[in-house]
């Protein structure tokens, strides 16, 4: 059976009870810091903060491990390649004609931290908020419903495609497809039956989804959309939002050139 809710992991804590808009605001603030700031310490602090928030919010460790598993190859590529593109500064390592400089290494660490901190900032709302609540939050923040729904469905079905991929891979293996004990090229080729079947299944799913949405009146004009869930900011939500705003202001000040 295909079972996935995208990035969302069920749980109960103060973080799950926080208004989804505040959690989105947190992600936005972290990403803003990552864009504005070039201070490694600040970015490392933002990355650490997201881990602390996730831990204090009792988000299952599985979410963090899965995110790191997905991120690590990208982080490794950035750390390895970025120094090669920055030849300026003091050379710390020479490999043939390649010069690795201190500035290059620093830039690699900076970019890797930017990416990781942004991703974990985003994980806070994604892991703790069902896609439909995020759509509601976007809508109440003034985003057109269609756009919010597209974002919500994309988040949810990304996870579902992952589950579908696993199901199809299992089905192909059950038909004798072998992935183990081959060279890299053969292994890559062995994934073709799974990837092609996944694309076909995804296209069919999107067709069915379009029918399912239309059959229940999506896109009907002339009526104002209503919702079962109305998000209401409580005092604690405002407090958290103010705290995030102050932290963002502090981070911006720290990031200004001296």
């Amino acid at each position, binding site marked *: *059976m*295909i*079972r*996935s*809710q995208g990035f*969302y992991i069920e749980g109960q804590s103060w973080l799950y009870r926080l208004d989804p808009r505040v959690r989105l605001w947190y992600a936005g603030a972290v990403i803003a810091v990552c864009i504005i700031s070039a201070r490694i310490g600040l970015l490392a602090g933002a990355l650490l903060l997201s881990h602390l928030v996730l831990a204090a919010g009792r988000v299952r460790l599985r979410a963090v491990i899965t995110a790191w598993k997905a991120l690590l190859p990208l982080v490794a590529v950035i750390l390895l390649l970025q120094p090669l593109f920055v030849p300026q500064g003091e050379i710390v390592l020479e490999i043939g004609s390649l010069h690795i400089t201190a500035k290059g290494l620093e830039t690699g660490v900076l970019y890797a931290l930017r990416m990781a901190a942004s991703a974990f900032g985003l994980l806070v709302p994604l892991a703790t908020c*069902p*896609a*439909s*609540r995020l759509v509601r939050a976007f809508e109440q923040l003034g985003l057109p419903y269609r756009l919010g729904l597209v974002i919500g*469905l994309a988040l*949810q*079905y990304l996870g579902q495609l992952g589950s*579908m991929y696993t*199901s*199809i891979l*299992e*089905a*192909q*293996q*059950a*038909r*004798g*497809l*072998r*992935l*183990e004990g081959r060279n890299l090229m053969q292994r890559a080729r062995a994934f*073709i*039956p*799974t990837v*092609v*079947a996944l694309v*076909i*299944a995804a296209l069919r*799913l999107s*067709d*069915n*989804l*379009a*029918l*399912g*949405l*239309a*059959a*229940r*009146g*999506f*896109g*009907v*004009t002339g*009526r*104002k*959309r*209503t*919702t*079962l*869930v*109305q998000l209401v900011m409580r005092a604690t939500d405002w407090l958290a939002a103010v705290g995030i705003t102050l932290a963002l202001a502090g981070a911006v000040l720290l990031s200004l050139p001296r």
Partner: protein
Amino acid sequence: MPQSGPFVEICNLSYRYPSLRTGSVSTHALRDVSLSIEPGECVAVTGPNGCGLTTLCLATSGLIPHLSEGVLEGTIRVAGHNVQSEPPGALAGLMGLVMQDPLGQLFNTSVEEEVAWGLGNLGVPRDEMEERVGWALRVTGLQDVPRTQPPHALSGGQQKRLALAAALALQPRLLILDKPAGGLTPRGHAEMVAVLRNLRHDGGLAILLAENDSRLIAEMADRVFVLDAGQVVSQGSPRAVYTQTPDLAERGLSLPPAAAFTKEVNTHSDLNLSAFTDAEVLAQTGSYALKPEGVGAPQSPAGLGTGSVEVAVTVRQLRFAYPQGAPVLQGIDLAIPSGQLATLMGDNGAGKTTLARHLIGLLRPQSGEILLFGRTVSGRSIGELAREVGFAFQNPELQIFSPTVREEIAFGPRNLDMSEAQVDQYVQDALDSFALTDLADLPPAGLTFSTRRLVALASIAAMHTPLIVLDEPTVGLDETGRQQVLTWMRKRHAEGATILLITHDTEFAAACAERVIVMQHGRIIVDGAPLQVFADQATLQKAGLVPPFALRFADGQGRPTHALTPEAAAHEWLELRQ
């Protein structure tokens, strides 16, 4: 808009999908279909795979041709609205559609939001929305499911009922159901029938029911239209259509079990019964006295004991639980002798699929042991186990990827390193078994749901493994498809293959199984010969199953039976009649 004429009026409806091949014109999916439905009436459309049932549902709901290319002719009017002139979804408050595959319809993250989503599109105020969500969940029997539960965490039957609740919450006057019975357990089937009956009688709901299951049609429909190649070839009351259409089997249709009994009795005697339902069969046969000696108690057929026969599957004390989940398998002990055709039955969530997934190595025992033909599965890869086990998944059509049907079927045997001559022979055998030879050079992805299912089953058949595990292979198939699966299973069984069939369909199991194993809550609660197991009505009921017709009939007459199928029950009753 003022309404004159029938509530639903479909006139000379024809439709052609865009062609799969450039430059050619596709054949008609529907041709000159005309039918009408009145409020409170249930009209069923049925026919062989690919006859146009889904197309008719989508056209009636106004989704095609708006959301698909293709050419539509004729008119569809619902409550005076010309459906084709309205944008898709504009009549969502008037018509509700429940599609065959719930996956595309359940896209919200909680049960209550799923039901409320369509109401939001129609601008229903929040207070009324709350009421309607509660009502829809109540009438579909989902009131006890936590409202915050994600739809994907529900069982298959509950998902179908949730899709129904989401459609009913819109309070439509016409409900369009595309094969709602597929994959439902007998318990789920009975619950759905009860819900729909109430809505029809109390709320005047009109229903267009596209279905291959003759039992559901017999229980629900006032009139039936039989389609073949997109055309109406027969119509009338279910009783008239099923008892008077001479070429029913050729049209991919089966008689409801009670009607099959009646037909067999009338064919082999000078009686002229007219019974169409279980109750009518009991009433009409009740006036005949039976020989006092009866048939005697059922005996266990040979071959159930393992004796010295080679054991194909040995499961010892198998336990399994998903992470953060309740135990799914709680100490399974099972031995299936080589060459046996066994069925595994039980309610949704009983653990049947989880047990089967262990046999091909997709899940590994957390404790306990599994042996296939005397060798442990531990340490052997899925690809290696595939040489011994052919496993057809619940959604086998998902695995399709090849450019042609022939290539798709050849994928498995080629992976098993068979010679090309052997591959060709097994592929041709599989094409013949499932009547796919004419489609061999077509792309399988463009075929209908049921044909893709047959292609996927044929791809397992071509692997020619000594052990075959089939997980709900007949869901979505018409009678012709069911018979093809049955014939192929019997052929492989006669050749000595061991078959483990997972099904909810007791009639199908009764027609082929040598042994029935029933699971509940991760345990085997009864295991034996079909006659013994199906006679244990209390245990079956606990597991959400109903006995096949033949045993219900004998039970109704208060006597033992040796019969498992309606036809065998007819012969037995004729022999017993004084």
